């Protein structure tokens, strides 16, 4: 009996607290929020992303701001580990616990479509007022399969050339405006050699992972090399026909940076760390580092577009895109709410540009908010000449360890440039036909 009474009392006081707090928050927030008067519970949208570091903080702030200004919708952001992201996404769809909205890399969209993880979103995007013509061409191309849109591009994240102004000044490499420009491979090598006097590490860059692949692909595209993979996605074609000479020449130029001119020292385990510690004069790295580098190096930081060293402008890039995972439990209201969020983020994409990325929505670049961000206007135009890893049905090159291992063994002189490239092509072709 006593128990029961206690339970009742607890229940009563709990109810009182809830009522009180609702009333208090209602009172304090209602003047701020115009739409706060609606009584209905907000539509909950589970949103998965893979943003760590600066990306993560920026997206959290965006979700917070959206939720505050849209009391009818609650975006429940769930950040998954980058390395496990697609495994989790696929298994979540399989297990019937898919999120309502998620992020995918542009070059991963075809894989997700092939696996049946995502669905086309033309009708939903149209209803939300998404204008496809606002976006840069490259991410849009990867998001479109057989004429249908499967993803809405959020950004373009690409390689930039960062440099340490005080080290470059000591080496006499800055122009009158205090900036660095480079026009050719020969000049780049000669500048990197000059900077050896003042920096232990002329150019900070790894020989493992996907970075060297992205560098090689950028050089290859600048030399006029064609697609890495055929249009049926069944064969690697960079060692075929006219591509072959370009593939070899591009790899030789990458190889020379490590092994002939020694401007990329071997085995740098943390390329960002040595640049921030002022041991490196240059670093080629992603847009996502702009603010982190700026916070550490302050006025010493220089940021410029990825150098065009061979004729045709091209720079490795990728995009984050919004996707609708296959989820039978998602109600039309949730779909609509999810797209409302997407549209709002696209319209306010200067907020996302704070993470360093170039907004996929080109119209953002003319806004005052975007222009006021440091360095962004130095490289915003790069969105026009970006080069993506090939989109395939089953192989994601960013984590394709066997192919990346062969590339690393080229740079470590365990195989020759030509044999290694041929081995990479054979391996990739084999993988493309495996399923």
């Amino acid at each position, binding site marked *: 009996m006593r128990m029961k009474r206690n339970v009742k009392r607890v229940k009563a006081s709990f109810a009182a607290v809830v009522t009180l707090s609702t009333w208090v928050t209602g009172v304090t927030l209602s003047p701020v929020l115009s739409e706060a008067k609606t009584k209905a519970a907000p539509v909950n949208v589970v949103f998965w992303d893979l943003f760590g570091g600066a990306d993560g903080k920026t997206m959290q702030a965006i979700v917070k701001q959206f939720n505050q200004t849209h009391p009818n919708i609650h975006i429940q952001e769930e950040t998954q580990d980058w390395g496990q992201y697609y*495994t989790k996404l696929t298994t979540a769809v399989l297990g019937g616990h898919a999120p309502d909205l998620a992020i995918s890399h542009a070059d991963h969209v075809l894989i997700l479509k092939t*696996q049946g993880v995502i669905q086309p979103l033309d009708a939903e995007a149209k209803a939300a007022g998404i204008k496809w013509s606002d976006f840069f061409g490259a991410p849009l191309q990867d998001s479109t399969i057989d004429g249908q849109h499967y993803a809405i591009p959020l950004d373009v994240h690409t390689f930039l050339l960062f440099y340490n102004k005080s080290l470059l000044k000591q080496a006499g490499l800055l122009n009158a405006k205090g900036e660095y420009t480079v026009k050719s491979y020969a000049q780049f090598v000669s500048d990197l050699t000059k900077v050896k006097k003042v920096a232990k590490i002329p150019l900070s860059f790894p020989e493992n992972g996907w970075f060297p692949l992205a560098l090689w692909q950028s050089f290859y595209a600048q030399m006029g090399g064609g697609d890495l993979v055929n249009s049926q996605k069944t064969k690697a074609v960079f060692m075929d026909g006219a591509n072959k000479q370009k593939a070899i020449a591009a790899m030789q130029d990458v190889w020379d940076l490590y092994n002939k001119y020694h401007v990329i020292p071997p085995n740098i385990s943390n390329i960002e760390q040595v640049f921030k510690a002022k041991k490196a004069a240059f670093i080629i790295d992603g847009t996502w580092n702009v603010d982190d580098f700026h916070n550490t190096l302050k006025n010493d930081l220089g940021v410029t577009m990825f150098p065009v060293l061979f004729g045709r402008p091209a720079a490795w890039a990728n995009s984050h895109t919004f996707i609708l995972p296959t989820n039978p439990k998602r109600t039309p209201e949730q779909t609509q709410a999810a797209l409302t969020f997407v549209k709002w983020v696209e319209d306010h994409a200067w907020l996302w540009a704070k993470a360093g990325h170039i907004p996929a929505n080109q119209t953002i670049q003319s806004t005052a908010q975007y222009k006021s961000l440091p360095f962004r206007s130095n490289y915003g135009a790069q969105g026009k000449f970006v080069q993506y890893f090939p989109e395939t049905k089953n192989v994601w090159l960013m984590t394709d360890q066997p192919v990346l291992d062969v590339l690393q063994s080229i740079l470590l002189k365990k195989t020759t440039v030509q044999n290694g490239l041929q081995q990479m092509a054979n391996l990739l072709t084999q993988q493309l036909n495996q399923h």
Partner: protein
Amino acid sequence: MNMVRRSPATYMMLLPFFVLYMYFTFYPIVKGFIISLQDYQILGEKTFVGWQNYRQLFADPTFWASVWHTVLFTLLSVPILVIVGFLLALLVNVPMRGQTFFRAVFFMPMILSVSVVSSVWTAILGSYGGLVDALLNAIGVKQQIFWLTDSKLAWVSILLITTWWTAGFNMVLYLAGLQEIPAEHYEAATIDGANAWQRLRYITIPGLRRVTVLVVFLQIIASFKVFAQVYLVTGGGPAGATRTLIQYIYEHAFNQFLFGPGAAASYVLFAMIFIVSLLQLRLISSAEQGG
């Protein structure tokens, strides 16, 4: 059946565990084998392909390299971890001030998670500014030593990290074994004029035979399953020089979604461990008869 009728309560009490065991351990084992014989699309069709996944596996040089790395790691790590564990046990068995403290200190790394261990050692061994690099610089060594990215030194580093991390477990097993050796044996030997080395050689080591067989048995299985610290510290690099079999399985099944070949590779690992374990079990039973 007779047994069940005689003591139904016992079997009723075993039932919940039995059901869970069948569902969460036995069923996945069988299912894994079935997947290894299939072209397994996670959200699509699953077609039976016989031994094709295994044939594909045996034709892949990366697979054989991973098998070799795993065997190499086992061959190197088992003696080191057993001997270091044994020596640590001897050390902390000596009656002295702070004995409990030292026992705790040597066991401590064992309670850390693999991610913590890997992060700490990456910071210690990293090139261009790691702790070891900075110390060597301070005493005038200007040459860079690539602890984690040279294909030979990477193995040395992994062995070092694994020893630091897990030797404490073997130490505890040996320490327990040491308590079981009657003190009178040592007393009698001392009276007969045996020196410290002789006491170790003729009393301690034979007295620990059963523990040693157990420690080696557990260590071989653990070493065959090496993955996380390697994956986190070297990523299997440089250029795949430290890729182990479990990493190969992981990459196939969970990066490339090739569940068939992934499952086949895990069955090869299973067979390897199974055969080694059988040999070990025979050794254990002969040790028990002998001791």
